[in-house]
C-alpha cells in the first residue's frame, strides 16, 4: 500500500473528472484505470484542480475534513473551533456561498444559509476530495455544478467510481483528546450486478479543550464549556451495473447531530446554554450511460430534507427559553446529454430543476420558496496541442413566499471559457487560461430573516480570470512522479451582500461592496522512490491573496485587505512509507488577518503555523488487515484563532485502529 497504489487509484466516486481525451465517458465507464491519472487530471485541467485522495490523507497526516481543506491552495477555511465547530470553505477571496459542495457527484445545498458546513462530513469513508476553481474539465455534469465560482467535491470510497466491488467489512475506532471517540463501520456486498454498501459513524466529543485567553496584559488559562457533541451519520449505497457502460447508483443518507454551542469567548462570562440539533436526510439516484452514436447521458434525482433546531435558555427570553426551528426541503432533478460526434469535439447540454422551501416556528416566518431552472451548453474541442472549452449557463431563479413579499427573481446568462495548451508533445507541460463569470443568489436568511433580510437583494456577482502553468514529469526511478502547478488569478466581486445598520437596532442586508482579488497559488507534489519498498511523498502549497475592498474611495476600508483573508498561507507535508512504521509530518499556516476590512490594528488576528505528525502501520492478517495509526495535532501547542473569539484547540492526539476484511 504505497505510492504506486495511491497513483493507481484514480479519483474515486462518480463525479471524477474525466481524462482529457474527449471520449471521457466511455473511458470512465469501462473502468479503465490509468497510472498517474490523478496527476494527469491536475496537470491537464484547463482550470485549477486539486485533489487529495485517501492515500494522501495518511501520508500528509491529515486528521479531519477541516485539516484537509486547509491543505488546498487558495482556500480560506472559516472554523469555529473544535470537532463541533462549524466549518465553511471560501475560495480565492469569494465568500463561502460561492463554493458548491458535491457529495458523490450531487450538489449539497442549504438554501437557508447558502453555504455548506463541511464539519458534517468525516474522512472515514473518503475516496477523494477535489477542489475545482472555475469550470470542471469533465463536461458531462449537472448544470448546477457549473453555477458556482468553485466546487469542492467529496467522493466516498465506493465502487461507484472505478474500483472493483468486493465483499468487505471495515471496522474502525478512533479516539482522541478532549473526550473524542468515534466508531465507524462499513459493509460491502456484491449481489450479482448490484453492489450494496452500508456505512455509518458516530462521534461523541466533549470538546472542552483548554485555551489561553489574552485580555490586554492579563493571560488566563480557560476551558471551552458547553461544547459537548453527539453526531451520527448513516448511509446506504447501491450500485447496479445495468449493462456495460450503464450504471445506476442510489444513495440514502441520514445525519443527526446534537451539539452544545460554546459560543464566542466573552470576557468574564463563560455561561452558555445554547444547543443546536441538526438533522438531515437525503436520497439520490444517479444514472450514467452510453447511448451509442456518440451520445452519453447523466441523470440525477434527489430529495433532501433538513432541520435546524436551535434552543437557548436565558432569563431574557419570554419564559426563559428560545426555540428557533427551521425546516427546509429540496427536490432536484438533472439531466445532461453529451454528444461526441468526432473524437476532437464534444458538446454537452445539461438542464437542472430544483425546488427549495423553508419554514420555521417564527411568528414572522414568510415561508419562502424558490424554483430554479439552470441550463448549460458546453463545447469542448481538442485541436492539436490545444484544448478549448466554452460554456454558457442560463439561470432562472423564481422566488415566492406564502406570506409577505417574495425576494427578487433573477435571470442571467453566465459565460465561461478555458483553454489549455501543451506546447511540446514530449513534455507534460501545459499553459492554461480560464475565465468565468458567475453569481450566487441571496440565501433565504439574507432575503427573509426578520428585521434583517431584504427581499430587494440582487445576486452577488463574481468574475474570475486565471492564468497558470502546470508541469508533470518524472526524473528517474527515484522520482517517478512530480507535479508542479502555478496559477495567478484576478477576481472581482460586486454587489456583495453585506449587513448594514439602518439604526442601532435594525440591520438589513444590502448589495453594497465591491472587491478585487489577485493572487497566486503554487503547488508541488513530489513522489520519491529512494529505494525498493520506500516511498517519500512531499506535498506543498503556497497561496498569496490580495483582496482589496473597492467600494468607495472615501471609505476607510478602501484598498485595504478584506476581513478574514490572509495575504499568505501555505502548507506542506512529508510522508515516508517504509517496511517498518510509516511516518508523516505536516505543517500548515496562515498569515495575520483582520476582523475588519478597515484593518484596524485592534482587530488584527495573529497568523500561526501549526504542525502535526503521524505514525501508521498496516499489518496484514491473511485476507484481512489491521491498521494502527497515531496522530499528534498542533504538536507545539500553538494558541490561535481562525474566527475572532473562537479559540482553536491546542495540542491533541488521535489514535485509530482500522480493521479491513
Amino acid at each position, binding site marked *: 500500500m504505497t505510492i504506486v497504489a495511491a497513483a493507481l487509484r484514480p479519483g474515486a466516486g462518480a463525479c471524477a473528472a474525466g481524462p482529457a481525451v474527449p471520449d471521457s465517458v466511455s473511458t470512465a465507464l469501462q473502468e479503465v484505470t490509468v497510472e498517474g491519472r490523478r496527476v494527469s487530471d491536475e496537470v491537464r485541467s484547463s482550470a485549477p484542480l486539486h485533489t487529495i485522495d485517501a492515500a494522501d490523507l495518511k501520508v500528509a497526516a491529515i486528521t479531519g475534513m477541516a485539516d484537509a481543506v486547509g491543505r488546498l491552495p487558495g482556500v480560506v477555511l472559516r472554523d469555529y473551533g473544535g470537532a463541533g465547530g462549524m466549518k465553511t470553505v471560501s475560495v480565492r477571496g469569494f465568500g463561502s456561498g460561492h463554493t458548491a459542495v458535491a457529495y458523490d457527484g450531487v450538489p449539497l445545498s442549504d438554501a437557508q444559509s447558502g453555504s455548506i458546513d463541511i464539519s458534517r462530513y468525516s474522512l472515514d469513508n473518503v475516496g477523494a476530495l477535489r477542489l475545482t476553481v472555475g469550470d470542471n474539465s469533465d463536461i458531462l455534469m449537472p448544470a448546477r455544478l457549473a453555477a458556482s465560482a468553485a466546487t469542492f467535491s467529496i467522493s466516498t470510497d465506493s465502487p461507484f467510481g472505478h474500483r472493483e466491488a468486493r465483499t468487505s467489512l471495515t471496522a474502525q475506532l478512533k479516539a482522541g483528546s478532549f473526550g473524542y471517540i468515534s466508531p465507524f463501520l462499513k459493509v460491502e456486498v456484491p449481489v450479482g450486478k448490484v453492489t450494496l454498501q452500508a456505512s455509518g459513524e458516530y462521534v461523541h466529543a466533549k470538546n472542552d479543550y483548554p485555551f489561553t485567553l489574552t*485580555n*490586554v*496584559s*492579563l493571560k488566563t488559562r480557560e476551558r471551552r464549556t458547553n461544547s459537548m457533541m453527539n453526531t451520527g451519520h448513516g448511509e446506504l449505497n447501491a450500485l447496479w451495473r445495468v449493462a456495460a457502460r450503464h450504471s445506476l447508483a442510489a444513495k440514502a443518507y441520514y445525519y443527526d447531530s446534537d451539539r452544545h454551542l460554546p459560543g*464566542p469567548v*466573552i*470576557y*468574564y*462570562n*463563560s*455561561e452558555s446554554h445554547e444547543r443546536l440539533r441538526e438533522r438531515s436526510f437525503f436520497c439520490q439516484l444517479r444514472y450514467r450511460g452510453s447511448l451509442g452514436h456518440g451520445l452519453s447521458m447523466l441523470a440525477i434525482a434527489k430529495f433532501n430534507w433538513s432541520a435546524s433546531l436551535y434552543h437557548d435558555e*436565558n*432569563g*431574557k*427570553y*419570554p419564559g426563559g427559553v*428560545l426555540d428557533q426551528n427551521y425546516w427546509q426541503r429540496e427536490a432536484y432533478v438533472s439531466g445532461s446529454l453529451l454528444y461526441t460526434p468526432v473524437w476532437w469535439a464534444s458538446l454537452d447540454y445539461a438542464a437542472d430543476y430544483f425546488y427549495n422551501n423553508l419554514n420555521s416556528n*417564527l*411568528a*414572522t416566518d414568510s415561508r419562502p420558496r424558490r424554483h430554479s431552472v439552470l441550463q448549460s451548453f458546453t463545447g469542448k474541442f481538442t485541436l492539436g496541442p490545444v484544448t478549448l472549452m466554452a460554456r454558457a449557463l442560463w439561470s432562472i431563479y423564481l422566488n415566492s413566499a406564502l406570506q409577505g413579499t417574495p425576494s427578487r427573481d433573477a435571470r442571467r446568462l453566465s459565460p465561461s471559457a478555458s483553454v489549455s495548451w501543451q506546447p511540446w508533445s514530449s513534455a507534460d507541460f501545459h499553459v492554461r487560461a480560464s475565465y468565468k463569470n458567475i453569481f450566487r443568489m441571496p440565501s433565504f436568511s439574507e432575503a427573509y430573516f*426578520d*428585521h434583517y433580510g431584504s427581499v430587494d437583494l440582487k445576486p452577488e456577482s463574481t468574475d474570475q480570470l486565471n492564468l497558470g502553468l502546470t508541469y508533470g514529469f518524472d526524473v528517474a526511478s527515484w522520482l517517478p512522479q512530480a507535479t508542479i502547478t502555478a496559477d495567478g488569478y484576478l477576481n472581482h466581486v460586486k454587489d456583495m451582500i453585506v449587513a*448594514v*445598520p*439602518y*439604526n*442601532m*437596532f*435594525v440591520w438589513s442586508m*444590502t448589495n*453594497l*461592496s465591491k472587491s478585487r482579488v489577485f493572487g497566486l497559488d503554487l503547488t508541488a507534489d513530489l513522489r520519491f522512490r529512494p529505494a525498493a519498498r520506500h516511498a517519500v511523498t512531499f506535498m506543498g502549497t503556497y497561496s498569496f491573496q490580495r483582496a482589496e475592498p473597492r*467600494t*468607495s474611495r*472615501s*471609505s*476607510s*476600508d478602501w484598498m485595504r485587505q478584506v*476581513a478574514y483573508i490572509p495575504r499568505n498561507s501555505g502548507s506542506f507535508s512529508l510522508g515516508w512509507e517504509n517496511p517498518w512504521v510509516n511516518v508523516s509530518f505536516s505543517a500548515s499556516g496562515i498569515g495575520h488577518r483582520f*476582523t*475588519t476590512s*478597515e484593518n*484596524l490594528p*485592534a*482587530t488584527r*488576528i495573529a497568523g500561526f503555523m501549526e504542525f502535526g505528525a503521524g505514525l501508521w502501520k498496516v499489518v496484514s492478517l491473511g485476507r484481512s488487515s489491521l491498521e494502527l495509526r497515531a496522530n499528534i495535532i498542533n504538536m507545539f501547542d500553538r494558541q490561535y484563532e481562525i474566527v*475572532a*473569539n473562537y479559540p482553536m484547540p491546542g495540542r491533541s492526539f488521535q489514535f485509530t485502529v482500522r480493521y479491513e476484511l
Partner: protein
Amino acid sequence: MNQISKSSIMKRKFPVFIFSALLALGAASCSDDNNGDTPDPDMPENTLGVYVLNNGNMGKKIEGDITYYDYTERKAFQNIFQNANGRSLGNSPQCAVVYGSKMYVGVYESNTIEVIDRNTYKSIKQIPLAGRDASMPRGMVARDGKVYVSMYSGYVSRLDTLSLAIDKDVKVGPNPEKIAILGNYLYVPNSDGMSCNTTGYGKTASRINLDTFSTAENFEVGLNPTKFVTDGSSLFLLCMGNYGDVPATVYRVDPSDLKSTEIGKFTLMAADSNYLYLINAPYGVDRISYQKYNIATGAFSDMISDEGVESPADIAVDPRTGNIFITSYVIENGYANYAIDGYAGIYDASGANKGRFTTGVGPVLMFFSMR
C-alpha cells in the same frame, strides 16, 4: 488616538460627582444623599468633562471601554479603563452611573458590573452576574447610597454602595431598558425586545416604590418603551415603536395617573431642568431633525444651528453649562460603520457648533464628570 495621560487624571484632587445624563437633574435634585466622601451632591459647581461609554463590536473583536473628554484640556482620552487596569472592561457595556467616589458600569455581554475608582479608574470590584436570575445590565441610576440596575432578564437590582453587593432584586416586565427616578419612584420601561419576532414588542412600564423596593406596579405605555428621563419634576418616556409602521415616539408621563401624552416623533432624547433635547433619526442617514422642547411651555425650537452629526447614537446635555453633546457613528457608503471609531459633536447652550472629539467604537451613552 489619544493615550490617556495618567498624571492628568491623577492630578484631580477632588472626588467628582457625576451622574448619568440620562437622568439629567432628576436624580441629583431629588437626592439627599451625603454618603461617604463626596462633596454635597446637590450642589455640583462645575463640570469637568464628559464620559462616553463605547459599546465596542464583539463580533469584530472590539471591546467596550470609556472615552473621557476633558473640558479644560479640550482633549479626549481613549480606553481609560483598559489603560488603568491592564484588562478589558468587557463586551458591550450598556449603562453607567457615577456616584460618590465611584463609577459603576454595567457590561451587558460580559454580564458584570465594574465598580471603578473615579480618580484612578482602577477597578475596585468586578461584580459577576452570570448565573443569577437578575442579570445582563441595561440601565442604571443612583440614589441614597444605592445604585439601581435594570437587568435584561426582567429585574431591577439594588446595589449597596457600601458593601458593593446586590442586596435585592425586584421582578419587573420583560427586557427592561433605561431607568429613571422621580419622586419616590423608580420608573422602568419594559421593552420586551426578545418577543419582537413572536408576540411583538412590549407596551408596559413598571414603577417601584423606593421606600420598600419590593414590588413593581405595571402600567400601559407606548410600543417598545426604552428610556425614561426626568427634569426633576416631569417624567418623559421614549418608545422606539417597531422600526416599521409604528414610529419612535416621546411621551410625557403624568406620575399621578401614569397616563402618557405624546410630545412628538423622536428616536433619542435627553433632558435638563428646562428642556427636552430631541433627535429624530429614524433611518440613521437622512431626515435627521434636532429639536428642543420647552418643558414649561411645550414650545419647540431648533436645538442646534448646523446640520448636526452623521448618525446620532446618543445625546446628553451638561446640566451646568447647557453644553450639548451628540455622539455619532461615521457614515460610509451611505451607512453607519459600526466597526470604526465614532465621534461626539460639541454644541454650546445656544446650539453653536464648538467642534468634535473622537470616541471609541459604538459611543452609546454619555454621562458627566462634575464637582
